[in-house]
């Protein structure tokens, strides 16, 4: 039930898929674009709507050891007690009593790509309202989710008892991220690392996303550069009309369905040349720190915001790939 007509189907093909990883995670230069799987089209946008338009902080996570889908309620109970205990700084805490932070763990069935992908896992912390009136809704103070979209590179090599959900996204106070992360590390013997996005990958993102057509009027394509080695920090913002960006990309891309490093380089070089013509500044000497398009925005320090539900799987696929290359 994808909204829009005609366009979306072709566009959903334009989602990037994982580069093949060498033994040392050295990636080849081309990304294959494969047809989107059917599951993606069945996805109910309502269920994942809350993931959109929020700034998510990215982490990579190594496979979880002995994680059991059937025990989510127990995990929630234990995690809740852990959080309470940490806040009490070492005093004994009774497991199962009412605590001021409520923990909920649930599966997000719609967020997966291939057959090998596990369902995404959502963790939500909510605080009981002080008024303690029964019908007032608990307020979500922190949320985080683990997911894998076409994470086959990782999951096909992993034996039984390991669950691969290499991408972890959080929204909320860092102190809660730290508590939840610590508990997962202790319980499932996994490791979390912040997932930074290199300027190279940011340029991939802007090229790929600039080429996607959107149904409604989209916001500008914006690139933010930071100029190194200056006494005062200087950021340069470079905004392009989305239709111009798409037109440029269309002239650059040779084979529909595939993107190569060369094409991305040409696309960026065109943008740089244009900027230089007007401002006499070589942007290629600055560091690309943020890109935003109508589809998503991403920052080099690993914070993304996804704007369009239709492209949610595609963006997650790319991020899963980045997370896996950080693990392997």
């Amino acid at each position, binding site marked *: 039930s994808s909204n829009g007509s005609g366009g979306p189907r072709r566009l959903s093909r334009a989602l990037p898929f994982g580069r093949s990883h060498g*033994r*040392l*995670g050295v990636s080849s230069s081309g990304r294959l674009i494969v047809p989107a799987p059917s599951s993606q089209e069945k996805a109910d946008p309502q269920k994942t709507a809350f993931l959109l338009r929020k700034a998510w902080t990215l*982490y990579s996570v*190594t*496979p979880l*050891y*002995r994680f*059991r889908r059937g*025990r989510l309620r*127990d995990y929630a109970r234990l995690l809740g007690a852990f959080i*309470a205990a940490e*806040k*009490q*700084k070492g*005093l*004994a*805490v*009774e497991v199962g*009593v*009412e*605590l*001021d932070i409520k923990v909920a763990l649930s599966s997000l069935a719609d967020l997966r790509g291939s057959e090998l992908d596990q369902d995404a896992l959502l963790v939500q912390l909510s605080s009981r309202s002080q008024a303690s009136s029964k019908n007032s809704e608990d307020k979500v103070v922190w949320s985080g989710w683990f997911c894998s979209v076409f994470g086959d590179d990782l999951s096909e090599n*992993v*034996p039984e*008892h*390991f669950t691969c959900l290499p991408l972890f996204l959080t929204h909320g106070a860092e102190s809660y*991220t*730290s508590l939840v*992360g*610590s508990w997962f*590390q*202790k*319980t*499932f*013997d*996994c*490791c*979390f*690392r*912040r997932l930074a996005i290199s300027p190279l990958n940011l340029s991939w993102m802007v090229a790929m996303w600039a080429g996607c057509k959107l149904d409604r009027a989209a916001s500008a394509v914006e690139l933010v550069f930071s100029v190194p080695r200056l006494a005062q920090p200087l950021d340069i913002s470079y905004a392009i009309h989305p239709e111009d960006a798409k037109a440029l990309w269309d002239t650059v891309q040779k084979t529909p369905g595939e993107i190569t490093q060369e094409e991305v380089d040409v696309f960026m070089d065109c943008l740089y040349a244009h900027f230089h013509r007007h401002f006499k500044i070589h942007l290629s000497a600055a560091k690309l720190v943020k890109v935003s398009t109508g589809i998503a925005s991403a920052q080099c320090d690993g914070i993304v915001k996804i704007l369009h539900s239709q492209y949610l799987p595609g963006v997650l696929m790319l991020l899963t790939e980045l997370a896996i290359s*950080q*693990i392997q």
Partner: protein
Amino acid sequence: MQRSSRARKQPLHAHHKSQTDLSAWRKGGTIDSEKSLQSHQSANDQKYDSQEESLEQALSYFEKVQDCVALKKQSVPQKHLDAVESTALKQGLPPEGFEILLNIVLSGKFADTVNTRLLKSLIPASVIPEDSVVKAVSWLCVSKCSGNIKLLFLKWLITMFDYIDHKEQLHALYGIFFSFLQDERLCPCICHLLYLLTRKEHVNPFRIRRLLELQARMGMQSYLQALLSLYKLFCPEQVTITLPGKMKTYFKNSDGPWKAAITAVRQRNQGPSSLSQTLFLGTAQPRSRKRKWNAQLVIPASSANTNNLEDDREKCFYLYSTNESFPLEQLHTFPQLLQNIHRLEFPSQMGSVLTNPLLLHYMNCVKDESIYLRLYYWMGQMLQEECTWCMVDNPYEEEFKSFLETVYKAECFLQEGFSACEEFLYKTLPLWDGFCCRSEVLRLLSWIPLSSFSDIKSYLYDPLAQLFFTSSIYFKCSVLESLKELLQNWLNCNAIQVDLESSSLNTTLSGLVNGVAELVRFVGWISTVGLRLENNSMLLLYFILDFYEIVCDMYLKYNLPLLIMLPAGIFYPALLSMDSVNLNQLCYIMYRYRTNLVAAKENELCKKKMLQFKFSDQTYQVYNQYIIAMVGCLWTSSAFQKDIHPQGLHMDDELLSKTAVKELRNSFNIVYHPAMMGYSIQFLQQICPDDTTFNFKLIKGKKWNWYLEYLYTQGLKGLKVFIESSISRVSQASCNKAGNAEA
């Protein structure tokens, strides 16, 4: 001097030393930790000696004090008090000091100011004996001291609770402590103490009633609620009141002045390697510095896998598991490991095995892929996240060093490299400056496994060669040392495999031979270039020959059908070396080459069961050329004529005569060789003490033989075995010339 004469290493002996070291490193063993504590302190010993004396005097003074004493400046008690204070803050107090000092403090012999100062100095160096605390409680009951001191003592007791060696008698005093609840001032502290002491059997209706009465009298106090909720947890049927579910801090922070002092004392006593020490005892303290939550280089303490306890039991994950698994926290000795090996489970975080030799032993027994995979992921992420030369501005180099050190020790213990570590090295060597964590990184190199993976050249050798050529001579020597260890590890691992599975030999053997050959050639190449860069440095040559000491013996010692001669670029600098150590070592190496080649030839001839192979004729040819050059130099004084190696010493007579050097022909024999000149001079001085002309020509005939004996007694054992094996002497009586090479 006597390198070749020292006991030759047998295969596998190389690392036994560190293995025993590690097993001596018993988990939580108090003896060992004290021992290492001592060794860390050795530097400070002298400083502390005088301090210990004054502490002893102070303690014996306080032990004997009878009556009330007033404290004046410059007085005797003041001096002793200062001694106690300074020792306590620096090293902590020994266990035996506590009874004496607690006696003084709680008996009210001194003024409160003194008691307070003494109480504040009660910092344990190791543990606090339970007896001293029990006696202190009895003083508390007779109320000789003031309320302030009582309160401070209770706070001290709460802070030190974990340092008391046993607690059984304290538990027996539960009722006594409970009776102190009536003192309103002490009540919060007593509640906290009871909270720490309470066990299920302590909860009874009388005590519950008493607490409820107190609550009625004093209102809802958090400390009373804490104790009540604990009682309710133990006996929900007896405590029927509803307690507010909302948690808040029950007890005010009563750490008092001690916590910081304890930490400081611990750190000082444990010395620089406090990381591994604390880990080892399984009591890893959170780092004082603020770190990212996900990237602390703290190796987790080993604790049972709580995640599995509940649901895997019926699954019988380990086939012969009984229904009870053995708690890892209680695993301290090797016998315990043996008795419980069938009911052990790996810790919830595999990283913790690194610092636990018992678990490393266990890991050796259990071959389960998931163990290695968990370790692989954890270690890989740790190494990447904390790598000081990959991450900009990472200030934690010392920690990273000690982490690398821990990984290396574990590898030595397991006699096996970790694949995460291998990948880390391949990824980061091209970025490495060769300086940061140098010795740690180079040691890790030695555990890179030999694999069929053919890219070792581009991942390891190329970046290493670049660093080698551009770094100092010390770096070059360290690299050679590591590569020697690497070669030895490969050969040892193979020796084990050959023993275990002789059937699959053919498949692995060619891979091994190729890998080893590639390594030996690589070292030959960088050594040749390195010697030229460093002007034939003796030090560098020493390390190079050390490597070849293994290479020349690979056939006999490691059953490897491979012998690679050392390149001429190493052979000739060693032969003409200015120092006797290297010359002697070269003689030893050539002797071992000979022994190996002869053995190979014999096996070839009689077609024994030894691995069927044939060294190329070229190996024999090069060997013979070297031997001719060596014998020509050292013995027959004919090197310039007889040397036939293309890079050798051969020179026309005509050219030689132009040099106008006298006695040119024998200038490299064992009398005139620059490396041997010192010996020949000393020898001459011994046989003709009156002759100061140094007439070297005297050394011939019978004296030539004496000279040889003299050299052998000077430790030139390599020269001895070389001469005895490779030079056939025409007649034992008179022979200072003839002699020829065999083989």
